């Protein structure tokens, strides 16, 4: 018992020392808190998959009432911004090559006349296919507007039997476009900050040669690692609180589920990242390699395989399998479930278990490598 308390007091002295280290470097500290805050705000407001303000040119060869009515309908819709029209078909390609125009709508000559006399007419849509997402949305929107107009001028004979779909938006009544991005950015930011800072902390001692001193001291090597990680754990917890406050009060994302559960899961995820950082620092010998590994090595997989930017189910199978070993993926699922859907622990126990398993594994590898270095 007594021995244990000696260790404990040693450990706490050591943790204190590490805290001093962290607090001395004010700028790094500022960065550690400043970055996540600014990024959450920026991305929370700016990132969206909504398509608005699409620049369109209308080539109206008919210039009759019908074509102008449709043009007006497009002008008043919030999706489109009608640009000064081009004179002829040849100019369309030039305009596309020049700028931001995403699509062109072409009315043939006699558009309205045909509609009136033959009962049929046509329009042509040309989209800039270099952005397929926008191209598809543009076609959908324009089709809807034109169909709507068609109904207006020539209502189709009323159907006697109709099924009317009533659509309800679950979890997101207002259609807040950034909702999906917030858990994603949280995962990304925590991942990078926690992993990189810890990975550098140990390597730095190696680089400076102070590690040798630590290892010959009568201090359990495990405690060196723990002492390195504890300050970052506490700081990251403050970071999570900050991020959640921002999400609720600034970005208007309500936490539907238990705040306590969300916080607990975030701590678990932070510990996973810290363990990953410790492991990286054990297998590298210079700060540069450690940073490149933890930053470039983590940034891309987190961006791609977490599922907040690109749908995972569309990826080829090998990538889907890879995504399972990315910790951020599981945290992202948990945050979505708890924060946005308001679900309880019984829905996320599996993801929690996976994160716990990953943490134990990473810590195990980190500790084992650390011991080998001692001998």
């Amino acid at each position, binding site marked *: 018992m007594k021995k244990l308390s000696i260790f404990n007091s040693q450990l706490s002295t050591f943790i204190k020392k590490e805290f001093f280290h962290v607090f001395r470097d004010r700028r790094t500290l500022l960065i550690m808190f400043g970055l996540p805050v600014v990024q959450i705000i920026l991305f929370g407001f700016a990132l969206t998959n909504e398509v608005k303000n699409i620049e369109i040119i209308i080539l109206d060869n008919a210039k009759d009432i019908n074509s102008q009515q449709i043009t007006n309908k497009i002008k008043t819709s919030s999706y489109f911004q009608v640009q000064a029209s081009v004179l002829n078909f040849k100019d369309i390609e030039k305009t596309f090559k020049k700028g931001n125009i995403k699509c062109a709508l072409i009315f043939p000559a006699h558009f309205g006349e045909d509609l009136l006399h033959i009962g049929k007419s046509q329009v042509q849509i040309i989209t800039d296919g270099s*952005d397929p997402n926008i191209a598809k949305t543009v076609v959908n929107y324009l089709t809807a507007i034109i169909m709507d107009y068609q109904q207006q001028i*020539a209502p189709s004979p009323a159907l006697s039997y109709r099924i009317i779909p009533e659509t309800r938006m679950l979890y997101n009544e207002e259609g807040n476009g950034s909702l999906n991005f917030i858990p994603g950015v949280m995962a990304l930011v925590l991942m990078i900050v926690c992993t990189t800072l810890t990975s550098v902390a140990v390597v730095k001692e190696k680089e400076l040669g102070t590690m040798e001193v630590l290892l010959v001291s009568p201090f359990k090597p495990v405690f060196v690692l723990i002492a390195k990680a504890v300050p970052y754990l506490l700081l990251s917890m403050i970071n999570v609180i900050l991020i959640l406050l921002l999400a609720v009060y600034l970005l208007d994302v309500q936490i539907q589920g238990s705040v306590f559960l969300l916080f607990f899961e975030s701590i678990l995820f932070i510990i996973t990242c810290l363990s990953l950082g410790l492991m990286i620092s054990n297998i590298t010998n210079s700060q540069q390699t450690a940073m490149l590994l933890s930053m470039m090595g983590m940034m891309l997989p987190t961006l791609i395989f977490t599922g907040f930017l690109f749908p995972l189910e569309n990826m080829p199978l090998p990538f889907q399998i890879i995504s399972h070993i990315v910790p951020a993926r599981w945290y992202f699922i948990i945050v979505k479930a708890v924060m946005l859907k308001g679900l309880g622990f019984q829905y996320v126990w599996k993801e929690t278990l996976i994160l716990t398993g990953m943490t134990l594994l990473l810590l195990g590898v980190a500790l084992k490598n650390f011991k080998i270095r001692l001998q």
Partner: protein
Amino acid sequence: MKVLGFLLQKEFRQIRRDTTILRIMFMLPIIQLVIFPLAIDFDVKSINISIVDQDHSTYSQKLISKIASSGYFKVVSAETSFKKSLTYIEKGQADLIMEIPAGFERNLVREGVQKIGISVDAINGTKAGIGGQYLNSIITDFNVNIDMNLRGAVAPEQSGAIDITYTNWFNPRAEYKYNVVPAILVLLLTMIGGFVTALNIVKEKEVGTIEQINVTPIKKWEFILGKLIPFWVIGMIVFTLGLTISWLVYGIVPRGSFLTLYSFAAVYLVALLGFGLLISTYSDNQVQAMFVAFFFIMIFILMSGFFTSTDGMPGWAKVISNMTPVAHFVKTDRMIILKGSGFNDVKMEFFYLVGFAAILNGWAIRNYKKTN
């Protein structure tokens, strides 16, 4: 000029010696170019639907099988209550629920109108929106069919019908790789220019060698150029490598002129290198430099229209986006490669980039003086 030659020799030698960084600089492009285009596909292919059929009638069955055979939807479960269906949404196994109430067929035949409930998981906005649209159009189509069946009528000839045809220019099959590959070429230059240079000067500071250089009669601009040129050369090699890979693997060959494309890449790289140097001059140690570089590169990547379009952003965000050199190069790179835009089409953007290059490098040189 002679001094610069020696400096360059030294820098190149240093870069060659550090094989880890060198490997990262050349491996990263290849890995990114192979993985990203395969992984990024926004196409909404299969929407998972959970169905609650409380009617079990001929018509409800018909509607369900019409949805299942449409090719857009995958029926993941058929439940007896909304509550049970909801668990599929909660677990993320379903994207939407369709509820057919009891008495569906009876009401439809007797009263001619019947509502059905559709609930979509709106956290993932894109999928929800598109799923809802598909489902609506299937139901509309179904309506016409019941009408014909029940009334024995033929599909009425519509008067005033507008026929809509559409073509996608520059990418007829609307494949995502055409959108993604040019963006990755920019990403490569960004990472080399931003990350690697940011670390470079700071490392000399940390190790203390910068003091030695500062006491030699080397001029500031020589020092900065000595740092810039090697990475510029590497950047251009990587860019060429990237273009070769996009041609070999994806068959994407720039439609515009190589001269225009390379002029843009060259100037862009100078701008980004200046940016990396600037971060370097402001940081005390590598960790700071790396974090600041990370901070900005994340903003570049996420806000410059790499993956999400800038059109939907609020106005102030577009302003920020426009203040990054990246946004301009992503835009023009896509235009030159995919649309074949000529220099005249994009010359304004070129001057923007030249401006960025001048400002960032000028600032870096100025700020480097201070530390001396």
